[in-house]
């Protein structure tokens, strides 16, 4: 069975150099995280607290969103709601056109990637400039981010040097990282100066105060949200938290889990547009709240834990599958374990991404490192079940996950049904397993996909029950 995902994976596994590079960077991120947590007994308690904060916020999502909206509006922030990415893009376009803006400076934002805002605006004659160094590199290469924290994780300095030199021939060729970064600074400064609209993401929205919190290291997020006369922030509806007091523990956990830093260079807390006395800052701040399937995910008591995510990327850095295939093979905005549970819920189990819950060994590393304790393996199992479940035919039971049951195959279902029946009938079960051991040398060596890279399993000489009996254990 060849699917898009499988051919992506086959492709990724052939690129040895890229694979090695991925592993080096991911290992470094893991080491940094480990060093930042070593011997920190309070860390587990901090995780408990943050998990509770996120769980509480998602449980009270509608109330907190309304509270946030009214606070933010009172502060002068214009709040927009979008059910789909198309609606969100149209809101951005509308603002751009109202200000006759011809281009946009953009800070790093996974929600803007989800919206595909660059391509959308481009089709309306508006250019988007990625200003985060990693995103800028990815944009120059005409690619997509391969990691949510380190977008250009798949590129080494030589490739980046060629890329920069190719696009800006006036720059001398250099593989020096500092020189490359300074070239980007130089190029971008003029853009910040000239732009009339800046767009950024949001890490947390504080309902109590109507504050938008944005963390970053480079200063481009501050530039995009401070210098142009209009600032547009885009975010998923799940990013809200109840109180300002919830912010310090989450910030602490977010940066340490992501890169091992105690804090980012900048934590930007935006409360309002420019006030009458202020001499700078945008005259307009717009916030776009994107749903795109989130409110549906919130409808299931198990799956809603997907929305607790704070996008630190720790699960990605610790995933053995991501480590092998890298970020692009997933074919999604968010790769890795969190992507494998989030994207199928958004796009449907019958979509190409519906196969992603299979991209797991269920080793559990993701759940072990998740700062807010999202039970990713349990949700993977749940989605695997959802994809092959037998749909109820009754009228008012809508499937929670779109495309539920779409991967159910009658033959497979029948085999499992027969197996389940055998397992509950000891006489049949014993005869069947005995038969398997007697035929152990006659079973086929090729067993489809399983034996492409593995040997076919061979039953033991005798069944477990037989072996136990020879050991005089016969009371089960």
């Amino acid at each position, binding site marked *: 069975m060849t699917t898009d995902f499988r051919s992506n994976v086959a492709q990724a596994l052939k690129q040895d150099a890229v694979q090695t590079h991925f592993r080096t960077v991911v290992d470094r991120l893991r080491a940094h995280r480990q060093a930042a947590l070593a011997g920190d007994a309070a860390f587990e308690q901090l995780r408990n607290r943050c998990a509770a*904060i996120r769980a509480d916020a998602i449980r009270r999502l509608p109330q907190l969103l309304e509270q946030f909206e009214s606070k933010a509006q009172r502060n002068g922030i214009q709040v927009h709601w979008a059910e789909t990415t198309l609606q969100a893009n149209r809101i951005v376009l509308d603002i751009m056109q109202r200000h006759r803006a011809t281009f946009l400076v953009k800070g790093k934002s996974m929600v803007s990637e989800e919206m595909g805002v660059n391509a959308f605006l481009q089709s309306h004659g508006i250019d988007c400039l990625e200003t985060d160094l990693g995103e800028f590199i990815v944009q120059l290469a005409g690619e997509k981010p391969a990691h949510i924290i380190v977008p250009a994780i798949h590129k080494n300095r030589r490739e980046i040097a060629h890329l920069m030199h190719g696009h800006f021939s006036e720059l001398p060729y250099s593989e020096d990282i500092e020189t490359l970064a300074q070239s980007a600074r130089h190029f971008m400064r003029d853009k910040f100066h000239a732009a009339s609209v800046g767009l950024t993401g949001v890490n947390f929205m504080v309902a109590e105060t109507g504050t938008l919190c944005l963390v970053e290291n480079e200063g481009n997020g501050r530039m995009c949200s401070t210098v142009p006369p209009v600032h547009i922030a885009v975010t998923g509806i799940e990013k809200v938290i109840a109180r300002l007091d919830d912010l310090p523990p989450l910030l602490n956990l977010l940066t340490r889990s992501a890169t091992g830093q105690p*804090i980012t260079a900048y*934590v930007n807390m935006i409360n309002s547009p420019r006030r009458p006395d202020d001499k700078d800052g945008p005259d307009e701040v717009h916030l776009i709240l994107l749903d795109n399937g989130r409110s549906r995910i919130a409808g299931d008591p198990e799956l809603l834990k997907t929305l607790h995510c704070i996008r630190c990327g720790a699960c990605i850095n610790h995933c053995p599958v991501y480590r092998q295939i890298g970020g692009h093979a997933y074919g999604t905005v968010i790769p890795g374990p969190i992507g494998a549970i989030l994207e199928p819920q958004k796009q449907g189990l019958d979509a190409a991404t519906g196969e992603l819950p299979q991209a797991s060994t269920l080793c559990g590393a993701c759940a072990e490192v998740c700062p807010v304790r999202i039970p990713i393996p349990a949700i993977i199992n749940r989605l695997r079940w959802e994809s092959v479940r037998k749909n109820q035919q009754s009228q008012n039971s809508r499937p929670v996950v779109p495309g539920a049951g779409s991967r159910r195959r009658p033959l497979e279902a029948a085999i499992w049904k027969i197996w389940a029946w055998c397992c509950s009938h000891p006489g049949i079960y014993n005869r069947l397993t005995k038969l398997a051991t007697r035929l152990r040398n006659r079973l086929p060596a090729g067993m489809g996909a399983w034996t492409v890279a593995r040997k076919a399993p061979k039953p033991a000489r005798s069944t477990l029950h037989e072996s136990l009996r020879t050991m005089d254990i016969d009371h089960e």
Partner: protein
Amino acid sequence: MNDARKAILDRLRLSQYPDSTPVKCDDQNDPVDPVLWPDERIDCFINRMRAVRTEVHDASHDSWLDILHGVCQARSLNNLLVSPHTRRGAMIYAAARRFPALKNYSQSIEDWKSELFTAVDAAVTSAYGGIAETGTVILWPDAREPRTLSLVPPIHIVLLEKNRIYNNLAEAMRIQNWAMIGMPSNVILLSGPSKSADIEQTMTYGVHGPKELIVILM
């Protein structure tokens, strides 16, 4: 997009589980963060800031002007952007002949954007507080010290009083009562100069914000 708003909120309300146990996330069982003695706090702050390539000067109320003078001289600055309307800004203006040409952010950014972006060597701001645990300076921009003052010029110098250094962010928020007093349009927590590790996870400084951060304690 009022339709979208209603549809989203309706869907969320519909999916609420009234029987689910409320989630407890109050602070009672929280780990007690280590509380440091004032001296330890200052040491911790200094070490953390230096670890992220910030130049920290441990000065006093008497010596900070001299230190600032030294900082300007060491870099042969041509000018210094500083407000004359803060207490310390006024003191700098009073000693103006010791310093490079002093500039005042007296107009809206639109009226002098080009100059701000190209012709300002360094800027001085005061700090609203400091955080020892993470090595962080709290900036509370206002009409006298606007947001871009600490962002656009390549060198940023911060004046921070030692008795305003708190153990951690939570403590600073609590003691200064941020939620109640009304925050400015933008609060900034600064922990080092602008940096990026986007190329091969190698740290490089001065990407989009200031290339140098200098903190003078008093």
